[in-house]
């Protein structure tokens, strides 16, 4: 029934030096629909595909505002993400209250990283079953960071997590060197192209299943859903003839 005898608890090592409970939690992340994050020198963008459990249900929220300068996108157990986002929102408020400044993005993600790490240390705890891409803008510019159940926090130029996210990463790896100088609109479009690569055969990005979030220099964190995403969806194919061609040509 069990894969092995070392996976009953997150605080138990396997002789090979692995913590299976954390690895299982990471599997939960891979089952969530994909999210993509990417950054230019002034902006940082999140795009995500929302899933709906069935025809009658609404689409699950993928992107959440933390503060005017920060937002997250989630893949995995959304209820775990809600706990983490509530914590981040509280800390962001506290930073404003105590220091009168927006919470530095790297510190924010390290704070939830520390919480995830505690779950791998103490008996009877369960690792968070969610991965996050956190975007934000602070004194050091735009940031894109990843949080995962192991408590490891990494910063990226561009990244994706969730189901079939390897396809998006392949796209991003091919193009990320051009992202630095892109406008916000072009950055969103590039993100959507990478996100499209994660879709199953026959599935399309549309106004129902697409979520966009961005923040940057002089731009407060903004979320776009529904009809508001149409203007960017229209650019995916149109731009491919120009911008996409240029990227591939390099």
């Amino acid at each position: 029934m069990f894969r092995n005898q070392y996976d009953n608890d997150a605080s138990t090592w396997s002789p090979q030096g692995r913590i299976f409970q954390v690895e299982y939690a990471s599997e939960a992340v891979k089952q969530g629909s994909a999210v993509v994050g990417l950054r230019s020198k002034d902006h940082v963008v999140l795009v995500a595909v929302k899933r709906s459990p069935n025809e009658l249900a609404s689409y699950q929220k993928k992107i959440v505002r933390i503060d005017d300068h920060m937002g997250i996108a989630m893949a995995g157990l959304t209820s775990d993400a809600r706990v983490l986002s509530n914590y981040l929102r509280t800390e962001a408020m506290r930073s404003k209250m105590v220091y009168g400044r927006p919470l530095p993005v790297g510190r924010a993600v390290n704070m939830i990283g520390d919480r995830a790490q505690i779950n791998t240390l103490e008996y009877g705890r369960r690792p968070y079953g969610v991965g996050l891409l956190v975007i934000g803008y602070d004194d050091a510019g735009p940031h894109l960071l990843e949080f995962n159940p192991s408590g490891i926090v990494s910063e990226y130029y561009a990244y994706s997590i969730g189901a079939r996210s390897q396809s998006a990463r392949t796209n991003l790896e091919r193009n990320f060197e051009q992202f630095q100088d892109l406008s916000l609109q072009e950055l969103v479009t590039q993100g959507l192209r990478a996100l499209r690569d994660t879709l199953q055969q026959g599935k399309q990005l549309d106004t129902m299943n697409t979520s966009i979030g961005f923040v940057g220099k002089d731009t407060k964190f903004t979320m776009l859903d529904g009809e508001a995403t149409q203007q960017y969806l229209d650019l995916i194919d149109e731009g491919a003839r120009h911008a996409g061609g240029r990227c591939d040509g390099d």
Partner: protein
Amino acid sequence: MDAIKIQLPHTVQPRAENANDGAVSRTMQPIVTGTSVVAFKYKDGIMMAADTLASYGSLARFRSEKRLMAVGDNTLVGVSGDLSDFQYMQHVLEDLETRELCMDDDQTLGTKSVYKYISNIMYNRRTKVDPLWNSYVVAGLDHDEKFLGFVDLYGTRYQSPTIATGFGAHLAQPILRKRVEGREDEIEEEEALAILDDCMRVLFYRDARSFNKLRRAKVTAQGVEISEPYSLETNWDFAESIVGYGG
């Protein structure tokens, strides 16, 4: 035989239980005090000055106390009022600086954050009706913008191109309003030093709790610079002509 009574600064005084009503009482007065701080904006940043005297009532008790302090690389803090309360605040601010440094992420606390932090401490203590008996002047360049703010034991805060605490609010502020207000982006360092010295001289002439050994400091794009103590040239010849009141 009379017992010798020693009065401790209010912050270390035991909270005496009043036998009559059982209410907690606290000594509510500053003990060892520093007088005015004078500060204003000029072309390159902010100038500030404070003398080095720590008075014990009317006694000139300690004559080389430092009332100007740097927090981080580009924030300058000046203080007047109870100096034991200031030393407590110094520890708090040093802790803050250390915590920020330990984050090790190339982000620094700006002047506005330091100001907000001090303001919170002052307001929270007044809300406990156990204030830190000080006025703080906080100056610096925050994102290349000149900043000069004030906060006192009530948590009252304001920003202004010219700020003077204590007696300075009555004696130096009128001089600053005349010579600085509206010109804070024009005044060269040389003129700023002259204005500062004039203010401190007037204060030394008139404020009986002041002292002719003072430090000045400036905060510019190059950071904070606090001078060694120096003295001003004064002229007391006019005293000869004063008749009455012991003249």
